[in-house]
Structures are given as structure tokens and as C-alpha cells.
């Protein structure tokens, strides 16, 4: 990361480049930038400055053969206390910390608690109000590190022709369902949302459901998503299954 034109911008350094004045506050999902850069770097290894969420996203990408994990070296960056608080992050500490110091996770999310304590009618009213604000900018999809389908379901007429703008209930619930087994809770969707829909709370609740049903947490490098395996946990034959 480097300051360019007054903003923090990602920078790719090759051998021999001087690093210049680098910054450690990462306002992007490095995993997302990596998946864009990766196809243009045919060989050699790429080192990525990765926070815990980037690390988990890279694990998800490598499980789905989008990047080769052996070609990536991770430089673990621990988030500061302020950053952790801003993201309401439950898992801020990378596996190996090379930069910075680990902060304590934020265990309780006020929005999640609030929604959980509501009766169903109030919950529906709350989310309807939130989703009414949506102007279908696709910011949550475009900036998501684990959104990688070639043909986005949400651009499919079947699902979004529904009612124009706002896109209705289905848009966000489908996204929530679709990301349930891969969301790494980086909070990028919520940050990029121009109308401040608390999307991170929705993702966290879906992730909790995954954990409750299958004991699976997204970002687990060793275990395939249970939605892509049989009941016994064997992988379903390749080719039968779309990666999404």
C-alpha cells in the first residue's frame, strides 16, 4: 500500500523495485486484488500482505482452484484495535503475525444481537426497511473477495428482474445464502454499501448457521465446504458440481 494522489492504493512490487514509502493501513481486500492480479502473473511466487480476513479469503480461493496456494507467500498483518472495532471483527489475528500486534476480537455485534432479539415480524420489518434503501449498485458483489462466479446469479434475469429498484427481498437473501459457506466476514460489503445496509450482520448470522448445522467455518484451509460434499463428507464427483 502506498499513497497515490492523496489516497491509499495497492502496489505490486517486482524484484529490484524499491519499496518506497509504504503504508500498512489496508482499505481494500487484498485477496480480491490478488485474484485480479493473479492471472497476469503466469509464474513465480507472489507475496501478499494479508490480514486474517485476506488469509481466509485466499484459503477459500485456493480450495476452489482460483489461485494456487503454493505460489503465494503470506505476510501476516495484524489489525490495530481501532480497525478491529470498526469491522466488529471476530477473528482479527493472522496465523503468523509479521507486522503489528494482535488485538482482542470483538465478540458481540450490536446489530446481530439486536436482530436476534426481535420477534419475526419486527425482524421482517427491520430488514424490509433496510433492503428498500438498496439501489442495486452491486458494490457488495464487486468488492467481495469471495464472489468469483463467472456468471453472477444476481445479474440473471430470473432473480433480479423482479421489481427493478429496489431489488426486493430475494436479492439480499440469495446473496446471503450464496455466501454462507464462503463469507470470511471482512465487512467489505458493508463498507462499500452507499446506503449503509448492515450486510455484515446478515453474513455473520448465515455463518453462525453454517457452524451450527455443519460445524464449518469459512476460511478453513483443510476442509471442503459441506455444501460441496456428500453427507458422509466425501467430495462429490468433479464436473457434477459448480464451484460456487
Amino acid at each position: 500500500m502506498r499513497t497515490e494522489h492523496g489516497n491509499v492504493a495497492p502496489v505490486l512490487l517486482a524484484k529490484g523495485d524499491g519499496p518506497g514509502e509504504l503504508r500498512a493501513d489496508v482499505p481494500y481486500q487484498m485477496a480480491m486484488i490478488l485474484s485480479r492480479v493473479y492471472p497476469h502473473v503466469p509464474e513465480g511466487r507472489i507475496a501478499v500482505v494479508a490480514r486474517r480476513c485476506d488469509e481466509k479469503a485466499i484459503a477459500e480461493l485456493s480450495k476452489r482452484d482460483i489461485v494456487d496456494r503454493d505460489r503465494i507467500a503470506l505476510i501476516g498483518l495484524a489489525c490495530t484495535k481501532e480497525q478491529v472495532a470498526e469491522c466488529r471483527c471476530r477473528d482479527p489475528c493472522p496465523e503468523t503475525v509479521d507486522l503489528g500486534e494482535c488485538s482482542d476480537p470483538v465478540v458481540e455485534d450490536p446489530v446481530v444481537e439486536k436482530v436476534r432479539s426481535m420477534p419475526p415480524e419486527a425482524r421482517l420489518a427491520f430488514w424490509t426497511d433496510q433492503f428498500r434503501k438498496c439501489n442495486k449498485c452491486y458494490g457488495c458483489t464487486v468488492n467481495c473477495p469471495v464472489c468469483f462466479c463467472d456468471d453472477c446469479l444476481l445479474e440473471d434475469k430470473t432473480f433480479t428482474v423482479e421489481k427493478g429498484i429496489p431489488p426486493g427481498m430475494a436479492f439480499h437473501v440469495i446473496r446471503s445464502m450464496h455466501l454462507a459457506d464462503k463469507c470470511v466476514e471482512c465487512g467489505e460489503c458493508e463498507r462499500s454499501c452507499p446506503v449503509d445496509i448492515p450486510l455484515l450482520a446478515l453474513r455473520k448470522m448465515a455463518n453462525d448457521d453454517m457452524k451450527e448445522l455443519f460445524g464449518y467455518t469459512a476460511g478453513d484451509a483443510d476442509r471442503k465446504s459441506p455444501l460441496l460434499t456428500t453427507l458422509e463428507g466425501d467430495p462429490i464427483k468433479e464436473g457434477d458440481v459448480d464451484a460456487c
Partner: protein
Amino acid sequence: MSEFSPNILAFCCNWCSYAGADLAGVNRLQMPTNVNVIRVMCSASVKPEYVIKALSQGIDGVLVLGCHIGDCHYLTGNHRTAKRIPLTAKVVEKVGIDPRRIRLDWVSAAEGEKFQQVVTEFVEDIKSIGPNPLREVVF
């Protein structure tokens, strides 16, 4: 006011449940007529997205019926269904839709009576829950 008559979608797999529904019909088993059957090749081809879309457009309940585990025509198709339909129910619960509006069951080609029983039970359940609130919601 007339009694609430729910509008229900049933996704039936071609190889078991649809044949089971057929058998129920041939045997003249009596059951509520609120169910619209959609024939799909496998219960795994029922994407959760379709279930969510149906609910968001005001359907009162969605039934997903497939072959029993181990009997799937495509070997492991219903394993996927068995995982993702319960997850869908959980996800829709978080936005305030009653998870009982989604039901997954296994009906084989020989189980006409079970089809009758599942449909009757489900229609009763939905009647007790009431109409889908999203039918009234205008975005």
C-alpha cells in the same frame, strides 16, 4: 371473510416423488388442492435461489421432495439437497420469514400415501402459520 387457502409450491423429483404423486393420484387419495407441483430432474436441481424467490414473491410455503437418501438416480444429488434446504430455512429465518414455510421430505415412487400425508400435514402447518407477510410488502 373466507378461510385462508395457502398457495404452495412443491418441487418433486422426476424419479421418485413425482411418480409418488402420480401414484397418489391414480389411487384416488384425497388431499388438499393447494399444492402446485413442479417436476424437476433431481431435488438437487432445486437451487435455494428458487425457494427464496418464491417466498419473496409471496408463496406461502415451499415443499421440496426427493428420493430417499441412497436412492437418488444421480447417486449423491439428494445429499446436496439434504444440506442446503435446511440451511436455506435458517437463512430466511434471519430476515423474519418463518422457517416452517420450507419443508424437505423424501417420498419414493411407491409412497403415494406418504405423499398424501406430507401434503396434508404441510397444508395444515401453513394454515396455522398464516399467509406469507411478504405478499403484502411492497418494495
